[in-house]
């Protein structure tokens, strides 16, 4: 087990190294020029040359990459090219909690809704409700998150006026207001995830419900809810856990879009705003941080199999 974890860690390190080279090279290999982004229109060649020298753009690739990586490892991701030239790491530290909160809330909402939905569906497989749920989830999966977000804004904030749009209350300023403002964004994220989770969990539950131990539990006279929650859920959750890892990428993507739609001060708004203006250090830093989180989360998910399934715990991870 320990060896497996070590091997896994080494893999993560290699992947992150390649990603960091990739994000750094991305800027280097393309026509855009950071010096021009800083200077804007109307500069003299002398100013341009001086700035390139000052920013170290004339150094060889490896030297620049080395110094960038060196400071990145110490938590310094450089400064933004756009005035007021704020510190990249600070901006990310301020934006990250917002994104994380919305994404986690969306995920929790999706799980809370999809687990009972899938259970009902699987327990009454092929019934009328089951078929409606299956068709409904399939339909929801075909709605892109930005479209869903627009429709939700249209209905809940514009027509009904129940929720505000383009406002954000930080967690520190009161939990109630914070949750109130996070509800619609989280709902948008939760829609697609709910549909996906329900479909996957339903499939696994149907298989599990045909096992002998479920029959035994039913024969003992245990109520259906107890059988479903305490006996059937855990062995049915492997595909769901795998899917969590896969859908994390989509989750991050829809979080970005939702933040843009609702104008939340999160990573998505940060990265899209910077991408628009060609603010390379900001994009580099944000991509690196997101990749780091994404890779670590996936590794954690891999490890959680061992917790859920003793058979894997004994084998190598």
């Amino acid at each position: 087990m320990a060896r497996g974890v070590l091997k896994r860690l080494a893999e993560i390190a290699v992947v992150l190294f390649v990603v960091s080279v990739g994000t750094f090279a991305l800027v280097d290999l393309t026509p855009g020029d950071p010096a021009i982004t800083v200077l804007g229109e109307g500069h003299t060649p002398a100013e341009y040359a001086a700035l390139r020298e000052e920013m170290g753009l004339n150094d060889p690739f490896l030297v620049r990459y080395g110094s960038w990586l060196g400071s990145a490892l110490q938590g310094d991701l450089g400064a933004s090219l756009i005035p007021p030239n704020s510190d990249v790491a600070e901006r990310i530290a301020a934006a990250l909690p917002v994104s994380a909160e919305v994404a986690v809330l969306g995920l929790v909402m999706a799980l809370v809704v999809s687990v009972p939905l899938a259970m009902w569906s699987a327990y009454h497989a092929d019934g009328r409700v089951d078929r409606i749920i299956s068709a409904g989830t399939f339909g929801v999966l075909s709605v892109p998150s930005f479209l869903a977000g627009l429709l939700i804004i249209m209905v809940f904030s514009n027509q009904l006026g129940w929720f505000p749009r383009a406002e954000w209350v930080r967690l520190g300023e009161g939990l109630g207001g914070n949750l109130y403002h996070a509800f619609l964004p989280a709902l948008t994220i939760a829609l697609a995830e709910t549909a996906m989770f329900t479909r996957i969990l339903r499939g696994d539950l149907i298989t599990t419900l045909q096992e002998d131990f479920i029959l035994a539990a039913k024969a003992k006279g245990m109520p259906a809810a107890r059988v479903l929650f305490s006996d059937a859920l855990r062995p049915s959750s492997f595909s769901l856990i795998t899917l969590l890892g896969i859908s994390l990428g989509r989750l991050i993507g829809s979080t970005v879009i939702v933040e843009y739609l609702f104008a939340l001060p999160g990573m998505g708004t940060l990265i899209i705003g910077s991408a628009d203006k060609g603010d390379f250090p900001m994009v580099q830093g944000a991509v690196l941080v997101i990749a780091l989180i994404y890779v670590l989360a996936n590794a954690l998910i891999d490890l959680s199999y061992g917790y859920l399934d003793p058979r894997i715990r004994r084998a190598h991870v």
Partner: protein
Amino acid sequence: MSDIVESTGPAEGGSRPGDGADHLDHVRPRGVAGTAGRGSTGGRWGTARGPRPRHLSWSGLGLAVPGIALTAVSPTVLPAPGWVCFLAFAAGLAVAYAGVARLCRGAFGGSFDLMFWLCLVWLVVLVLAALLAPVLPLGEYRDIAKTIEAPAMAPPALFSEHPLGTNNFGLDLLARIVYGARASLLVSIGAVAIGMVVGGAIGILAGFFRRLTDTVVGVFTNSLLAVPPLILLIALGTVLEPNLRNIAIALSLLALPSMIRMARAGTLTFAQREFVLAAKAMGASRWRVMVRELLPNVLLPLASYGMVIVSVLIVAEASLSFLGLGIQPPDPSWGNMIAEGEGNAFQDHPHIVLVPGVTLFLTVFAFNLIGEKARKRWDPRQAKL
């Protein structure tokens, strides 16, 4: 509809006569409980009902006619507020669908899947419209100077000059939808093609040579997968000129890792098989083994996966264009058309968002449904995910 609603028995994904030979090593034991316990469930969808002579389903006719009538009447004639019209329209559509499905099951046999054919028709119409866009009698889609006379924000009216309405510059939405489909399909299918060719080649090489090649390719795919798809696109959008070619290349990076993995996995399995051994024994070169023996076997799952991922890529392109990093206005794309309706325009003129939105939804839905069917047919192992 049978493909939206997943089937019950665990035996479904296992083996199926016809393609069993290719998946011998993955055949699952048939779930006895699954088939015996729920023996009668298939009846609803026709297969277990047994052959029945073709007939005219009167109940189907009885549902279809009023359903179609309600669908046709509700958006135009009905004197009621918007919500009621919409609900009536939806109800009419559902009833008409149920009726037509019965009629078709009666006429073409019990296993007729109306939804599948509807999706196919939609995609064929879309592709044809996209291909023939320059010769179709469409309104102006791009040049604002030519539409000064045209009404701005005209609502959809089927038999007028602008069947789907116009946007705030008076550009015809139907024309923009068709040209948007052109861009969207071109970019997504192009990206899938690039992904299939490049990913398939890399995957086969990695699976065939193993050792160092495999390790390097593995690190490469893992690194590509380490950046969430949309973030990767945004990062690329920062530095690339947003034209169709670059967007297609950027999108192909999303399809690439899975293509590589599938091609590699397929190669690993097939390289052990007797026909490859036979080819080697007969003195076939490595090149020949890869191209003539492995490629045809690896290609089929890649192609069916391509069908599935097209819809993902269409959504990705639309999202990118919606964020302003993809196809740039005035060139239409479904994404940037939806973006036009952000803010107050949506409130006052819902059709600005709904027209491209519904088109996008229908297209993604059709690709998903057909992709699902293709995957169940050709790659039963993955039918569940």
